[in-house]
């Protein structure tokens, strides 16, 4: 008989393992306590930001990505920028540009500014920067924003003339997205990994794996309003980990919070966002050709309920236009089609569309895209329509969205941003030639064309207002809601988010 091993050895082993883990955690706890103490001391001068995704290579001219802007918006500057209300002001330009003739805008550039690598910031640097984006071979994601520019003429070291292909009153509005970069340095490979700009923060380290560290620029050319010495930017892809990091005091700011997570963070900060979730209706073909059907589709949807339930109240009902309220030309007089299922039913009956099938296409590339489509479909079913809802692969979705004529489905969900903060962006969905448009009304086409060629802001605003009113009456689209951007912050961070999602660290303070 061999001796039977002691029964308690399994229990002993488990105990040893648990004890080992406890010791491991205990030793790290002391270190962690020391770190927290240091963190508390450094609290006046350092904050950490958690982004959902890593920051790509630091080229502010190649990519238009919100996570990249969390770094580059603080390092690079533009000729013109927008203040917290969305109004344009001269940043690297000495004054607002002058329109010398319908196609020529003249910029005077500030003197005495240098990039942090020592290169002078002047008209040559500005011309180089604009030209770099406008070069189709460079394939910038911002190309479509500068495609009106024909040539750039450096008049002298501090004067730049921008000549457009056709009269372009929106040229100043295009400037904030064009960051001015050092011409010689941007041709080196170091440019992608160690940005050198003119802004209030300097790059320190972290390209690639991160965390990215920025520090306050002590030699900033302008009035230095930044009070926080060091900014750390971490990528934490998992939402619950981001929120945990905020609760554990490791980070001070979490971006892109879904509405239902807002309750679980120490402090919430919001701003009316840039995105416009909209359903594009085919006004030329199919069941949606009849304006009564389009009105019924609008009236059948309880947009307030969508804002309250799906967006937990972090959204406002859109006022019958695919625009952010901070856009120039936003028509505040328009009111949404209010929820009225009975009227929707009678309109459908009158149009003979009762019980017919309507096709609705959506995509999961948009936040809540399929869920919103599902909700819309259930509202439409409730007024007696059959809904053929599809969420195809992205390529097939794009084919549907860009299709013209009878190939365009009855209804396609899309969410686009008002990136120029001008009503001209609505022309994408409201003019016959618009890339995402399935609506054609010669009056609206004409009004947009006139507005885009009218320099006088009051007249232009009136033209936009008229165009938006006509398209609203035609029920060309279903403008759903304007969602808010939601941020979670630590209790000691004082900051008001901006309409454009920019994280400007110079505007943040710690209590």
């Amino acid at each position, binding site marked *: 008989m061999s001796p039977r091993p002691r029964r308690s050895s399994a229990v002993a082993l488990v105990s040893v393992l648990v004890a080992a883990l406890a010791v491991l955690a205990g030793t790290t706890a002391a270190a962690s306590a020391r770190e927290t103490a240091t963190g508390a001391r450094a609290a006046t001068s350092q904050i950490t930001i958690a982004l959902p995704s890593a920051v790509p290579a630091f080229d502010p001219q190649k990519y238009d990505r919100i996570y990249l802007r969390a770094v580059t918006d603080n390092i690079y500057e533009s000729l013109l920028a927008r203040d917290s209300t969305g109004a344009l002001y001269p940043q690297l330009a000495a004054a607002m540009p002058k329109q010398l003739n319908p196609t020529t805008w003249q910029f005077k550039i500030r003197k005495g500014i240098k990039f942090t690598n020592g290169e002078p910031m002047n008209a040559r640097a500005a011309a180089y920067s604009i030209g770099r984006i406008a070069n189709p071979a460079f394939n910038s994601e911002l190309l479509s924003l500068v495609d009106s520019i024909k040539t750039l003429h450096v008049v002298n070291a501090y004067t730049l003339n921008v000549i457009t292909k056709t009269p372009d009153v929106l040229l100043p509005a295009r400037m904030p997205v064009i960051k001015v970069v050092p011409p010689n340095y941007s041709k080196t490979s170091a440019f*992608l990994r160690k940005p050198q700009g003119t802004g209030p923060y300097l790059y320190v380290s972290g390209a690639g794996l991160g965390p990215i560290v920025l520090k306050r620029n002590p030699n900033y050319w302008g009035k230095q309003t930044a009070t926080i010495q060091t900014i750390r930017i971490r990528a934490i892809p998992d939402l619950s980990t981001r929120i945990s990091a905020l609760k554990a005091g490791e980070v001070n700011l979490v971006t892109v919070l879904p509405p239902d997570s807002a309750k679980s963070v120490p402090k919430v900060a919001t701003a009316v966002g840039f995105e416009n979730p909209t359903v594009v209706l085919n006004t030329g073909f199919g069941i949606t050709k009849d304006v009564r059907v389009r009105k019924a589709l609008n009236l059948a949807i309880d947009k307030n309920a969508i804002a309250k339930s799906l967006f937990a109240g972090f959204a406002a009902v859109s006022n019958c236009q695919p625009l952010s309220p901070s856009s120039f030309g936003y028509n505040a007089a328009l009111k949404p089609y209010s929820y009225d299922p009975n009227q929707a039913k009678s309109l459908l009956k009158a149009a003979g569309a009762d019980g017919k099938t309507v096709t609705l296409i959506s995509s999961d590339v948009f936040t809540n895209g399929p869920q919103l489509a599902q909700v819309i479909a259930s509202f439409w079913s409730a007024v007696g329509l059959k809904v053929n809802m599809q969420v195809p692969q992205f390529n097939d979705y794009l084919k549907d969205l860009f299709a013209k004529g009878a190939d365009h489905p009855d209804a396609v969900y899309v969410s*686009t941003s008002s990136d120029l903060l001008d009503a001209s962006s609505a022309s994408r969905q409201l003019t016959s030639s618009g890339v995402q448009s399935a609506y054609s009304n010669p009056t609206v086409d004409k009004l947009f064309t006139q507005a885009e060629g009218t320099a006088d802001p009051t007249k232009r605003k009136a033209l936009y207002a008229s165009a938006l009113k006509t398209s609203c009456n035609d029920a060309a689209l279903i403008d759903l809601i304007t969602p808010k951007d939601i941020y979670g912050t630590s209790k000691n961070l004082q900051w008001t988010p901006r309409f454009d999602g920019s994280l400007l660290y110079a505007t943040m303070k710690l209590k």
Partner: protein
Amino acid sequence: MTTRYFVKRVLYGVVVVLGVATVVFVATHLLSDPARKMLPISASHQQYVTFRHQLGLDRPLLTQFWSYLRDASHLDFGTSISLDTSAAHAVASRLPHTFELVGFGLAIALLIAIPLGVISATRPGSAADSATVGTSLLGLSLPQFWLGAVLILFFAVQLHWLPTSGAGTFKQLIMPGLTLALPIAGRVTQMVRSTVIDELNKQYVTAARAKGLSLRYILVHHVFRNALVPVSSYVSLETTKSLAGATVVVESVFAYPGVGYLAVQASKADDLILMQAIAVIVALIVVATNLLFDLFHSVVDPRIRLAR
């Protein structure tokens, strides 16, 4: 004999990697349009055409496939669109983190599983056995995304003992390591238990015990050696599963900058070039890992190399 066996295994490996490369090419080029997928939704048609040309997507498909295979054979997958750097280089820079995580996770798993499995096998039906079987079942049924979130809530948010996420220090390795390890430990414990029970029921054990050898001596000198190959085969499966799958979840939950996290990033950014690089390089590593384990098995058990 060993060389011939090894060469044969390498050839199998080459076929597997070629197969993966082909599937990846078909998935990215035939089932979708890489240029459209990588461009922003507002891109104009002209931009699309230029970009297609830049990527060489306007060439005949077979030409593209051939140049893709040729470049992939030098580990050249092109420039990642989201990182603006060589895709292969991006993957290579993340590999040490993944190896570190998988190595640490497997070490914890084995440290837990082998002793528990053996103790449980040597006294089937006892309270210790039932406890081990129950705990290992619990371990293997825990979903990793949930386990990770619970560990974070407990150790980071409540107790402030460990950082929630990130990499670079040993503290930051503990929770992701445990999250990876516990389900593996559950499965390996059961495997060790059943293998050791099988061995203990064999005639050579009865003969050894009849000779008067102690159970400990039999376990160490006979049973362990015979159980090594099946257990090690199973561990090789767990290793490759971790490298090619589990790390995607664990690294994302803990923002651990390894290849799994990079894969999630690449898919979010629609960076097909980076995804191709990840798929092929991970396939290479999986094949190499299998080869190493095969080699190990053929060394510890000559029957394996003689049988083929």
